[in-house]
């Protein structure tokens, strides 16, 4: 039984921790996107949905207590639809789509909402309480390294210069600014209504509401000179700066995955299908190189070649690792991140896989092309890649 992607939406991405989505909890944010998705599919009734699978890289605090289940309750007008949370760090949002596909193809479900959410505004990177295993830490402290330090290690090992990283960062901003000014993201974004309740200067309680529907991390006017001014943040002798690393962000994105049977029953036109999904491990200290292992694996599963890909959404966790991956695999830079990446648009960890899927499918539409890939490095030494075909 084939599984198809019917449609998908994402929120615009807010900057964390001081951006426009900071007043919106992750459950409220994700529920708004899911509601938007469900209402956009004609003829879909809630009782047809078998599961809500939510990717999240820090499933605690506001995102804890199995946010997947909370979301199925909050987004759908029924308590009959269950929900689960999946964590594979930065590929969580892609992983959930693969799980949905696998479940449907195995005949275990017909209709699944899959995607991810992450709000980094209220929750610190890595969570509130990090407790490394002491015995493991003695031998392998690098398993617990911060991501920035792994990016430095990749820069060093693959000889990616500071200048190249800055240039990559600048281009990300330029492409993203261009995409936004042309309105390329408009149709994929579920607008979010934000309400802020606060105390004003006179200690009077006030509230304001606004619609958030445009990615806010982009700096259209950044320059090599400005980027060169920034100091390394992860290492005293490093090259990774706030200007050539992804931004911390708030965002949510979901797709609807459906079996061929239900699709036909409802008379819907599928948008795409996922051909393959592969995850691979690499040494944790060079985490960023993960896609170099995952991409060939996913291509092989799909029986496709790198050149068959028309659009590649490569998550820009860091410019250093993005460039290392592009160079190692010889990816065509023209096809990589045509609308900019996480350096400009942000990286809401557990949401990113689903967000990039939504973006890739929309870009294939725009270019009227067939194959797209979503790939990313994943914490503690992993890489993930998923291949989609636009229908």
């Amino acid at each position, binding site marked *: 039984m084939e599984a198809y992607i019917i449609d998908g939406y994402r929120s615009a991405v807010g900057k964390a921790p001081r951006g426009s989505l900071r007043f919106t909890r992750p459950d409220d944010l994700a529920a708004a996107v899911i509601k938007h998705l469900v209402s956009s599919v004609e003829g879909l009734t809630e009782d047809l949905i078998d599961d809500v699978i939510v990717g999240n890289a820090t499933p605690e605090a506001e995102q804890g207590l199995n946010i997947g289940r909370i979301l199925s309750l909050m987004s759908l007008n029924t308590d009959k639809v269950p929900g689960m949370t999946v964590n594979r760090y930065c590929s969580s949002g892609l992983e959930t789509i693969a799980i949905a596909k696998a479940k449907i193809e195995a005949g275990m479900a017909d209709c699944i909402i899959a995607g991810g959410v992450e709000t980094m505004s209220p929750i610190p990177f890595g969570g509130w309480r990090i407790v490394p295993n002491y015995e493991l830490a003695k031998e392998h402290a690098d398993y617990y390294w911060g991501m920035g330090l792994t990016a430095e290690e990749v820069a060093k090992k693959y000889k990616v210069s500071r200048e190249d990283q800055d240039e990559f960062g600048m281009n990300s901003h330029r492409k993203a600014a261009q995409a936004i000014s042309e309105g390329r993201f408009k149709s994929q974004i579920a607008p979010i209504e934000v309400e802020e309740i606060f105390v004003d200067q006179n200690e009077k309680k006030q509230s304001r509401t606004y619609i958030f529907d445009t990615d806010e991390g982009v700096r259209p006017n950044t320059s090599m000179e400005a980027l060169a001014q920034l100091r390394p943040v992860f*290492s005293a002798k490093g090259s990774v700066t706030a200007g050539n690393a992804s931004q911390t962000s708030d965002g949510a994105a979901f797709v609807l995955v459906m079996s061929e049977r239900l699709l036909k029953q409802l008379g819907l036109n599928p948008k795409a299908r996922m051909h393959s999904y592969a995850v691979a491990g690499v040494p944790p200290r060079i985490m960023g190189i993960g896609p170099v292992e995952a991409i060939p694996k996913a291509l092989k599963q799909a029986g496709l070649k790198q050149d068959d890909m028309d659009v590649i959404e490569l998550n820009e966790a860091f410019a250093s690792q993005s460039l290392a991956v592009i160079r190692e695999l010889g990816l065509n830079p023209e096809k990589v991140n045509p609308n900019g990446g996480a350096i400009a648009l942000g990286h809401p960890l557990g949401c990113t896989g689903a967000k990039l899927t939504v973006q890739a499918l929309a870009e294939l539409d725009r270019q009227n092309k067939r194959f797209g890939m979503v790939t990313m490095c994943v914490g503690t030494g992993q890489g993930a890649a998923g291949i989609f075909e636009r229908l």
Partner: protein
Amino acid sequence: MQRKIRKVAVIGSGVMGSRIACHFANIGVEALLLDIVPRELTDKEKSQGLSLEHPKVRNRIVNDALASTLKSNPAALYKKSFKSRVQTGNIEDDLSKIKDCDWVIEAVTERLEIKQSVYQEVEKHRKPGSLITTNTSGIPISWLIKARSEDFQKNFCGTHFFNPPRYLNLLEIIPSPKTSSDVLDFFLDYGDRYLGKTVVVCKDTPAFIANRIGVLGIMNTFHLAKTLGLTVTEIDQLTGTLIGRAKSATFRTSDVVGLDTLVHVANGVSQACKNDEALDQFKLPSYLEKMVEKGMLGSKTGMGFYKKTKSDSGQKLILALNLDTLEYENQEKSKFDTIGQAKGFEDLGKRHKALIKGKDKAGEFYRAHFAQLFSYVSHRVPEITDEFYKIDQAVKAGFGWEMGPFEIWDAIGLDSGIKLAKDQGLSVAEWVEKLAKSEQPSFYKNEGGEVSFAKDSESFTPIPGRDKFIYLNDIRSSKTIWSNSESALIDLGDGIINLEFRSKMNTLGGDVLAGIHHAIETAEKSYDGLVISNQGKNFSVGANLGMIFMMAAEQDFDELNFAVKTFQDTMMRIRYSDTPVVLGIHQMCLGGGTEASLHADAVQASAETYMGLVEFGVGVIPGGGGSKEMAKRFSESLQDGDIELNRFRNAFLTIGQAKVSTSAEEAYDLGLLQKGKDRISINQDRVIVDAKAKALELARMGYTRPIQEKVRVLGRQGLGVVYVGAESMVSSHYISEHDQKISQKLGWVMCGGDLSEPSYVSEQYLLDLEREAFLSLCGERKTLERIQHMIQTGKPLRN
């Protein structure tokens, strides 16, 4: 009704105004800082489309001034968050807010008509009975109150702060004939207890007291440099810590103060004091005139008597000015026999005596300088003050001299001082001549710890107000009840004794520890409480490193183990005794000094206390109970439901990053002082008095030896974080591998070792871990290198 200050307004946000406002913030008083409205927009404001009516523009001058003050170093605020206590505004929109202020301080441009127009406006809004004072240093107070109301005049006087007001301890109060005596009494008390200053009431004479004398001293030195052919570097060698003055001596101090400011005061005196017998001293030497013309005003213009540059190899280099050519040259220190001979005298008075006998150019300088100084101060009585001791007080507090001119004169001997002046062709005032011929030819007299001054040639009178303080210098000779080579026990009266450290830089060595034991024993037996404090430059810079180095270098671990155990036992004795032990600390209180404080029943800290467990800098962990104590404080801070690891991390990093507080207030934030238990004296001179009061209070409340409580340690849970954190810091080049090793050892101690679950252990268990870790680090070559480097250079080595 007693006057209370809840809120002050400072008008004029220049260097002095902003910093005065910040100092009120420091002491917990809200400050409203006001300045004028700008007349023109900046380019930036234009580009932002702002008009002159925009509040951001209208407060720009004051906000910019405050911002630059907040950036200045040393910091104007005890801690950054106090900036919310300073509100800003402009005199057109916000002057009416002064109606809520209890004290308005005017610190605007030094021009009579401007000040008068400010007062006219102030009079419209000020609350009747509120204080209004000026920070002027140049305009006679009596001119300023013309045309003002009676209430204004009654509540008006000069309050002359010294820059930077947080750090310089002098407040000159200059009453006008109309100032009410209540107001004067109020400032005498408020300036001392609240603002932490030495308050000196001055006559309304040009430059008042401190600047009149201090600037004479500087100008005289300027002239002597030229006439004796001494270089800038040489003069600063001769006029710094060697004679009990600031390390920055004469020329470096001038650079910091700003030559324009100095010249302003000197010219002010020249113009206003035509009958001053030393008028020629206030004339600018020609090199100074040229420097002012060329804008070489000191640090603010990037060059003065010194200039910072970089050598060809990129090293920082400080060049000194050649006073003849006005070119900058490499600094070259000279060898003076006089310095070599005088350095042997620890006692500053005796050292002065030796200095003026010098046979070289340095001796010549000192003779000429002190002759002029003695002559000058003698003639200033009664012109600038009726009581000569105020000159000593003002110069010591305002210019940071360890001894005032009359104290130095006493040390040299009245007759010798008179002869010194006469040999230089100078006269001394008649009252000094008379005093020299009296039965007791000295300016001061110390009888049983009470210091009095020569009111005239016949009688001595106690120095007013001095009884409010305890000066160990005053009582040392009469009240010492016990001493060994490094410490002494002094009876403070009322059942409280004080242990004073007397070791070099007040380091904690064998005899200091023995002194602590003896002091506690003595207090337990025969007194109500013990204070451990001193009035040296710093409370203590830590353990005696030389001793540790010797034992470690010889790898004499039994000896070392014994020494560390003794240290730990002594610290524990401070806490677990049958008598209240209060530590009175000030200025630098590092390493072992901090460890002792951590174990006290209470600490009385000067607001200017710089505390920290800095042992990482010498390659070890705190071994005198400091590591244990931070673990204990972490444990005690825990509340149900806390994320323990995060609190642990903060306690760990206080040691791991060798954090040093920049004030006593900040020491609370670092967990080195504790609110409710430890207290701050804004006035450093009050630390011992306040510590004594605290000890008495503890005794009166019924003091019982504390019971040892178990300490919660995290075991493996905490160790994992330590290991990952330390390794990451090495991998990101922030710390060295040796730092990593020390961090792991510290983590081991603070977590109680690799216990499977968080557990409760005794203090002794932690002390044993701490000692073991300390000793093992002393066996490391890199630790020895660090200790040696610190001993030789006074700076930490990062190897």
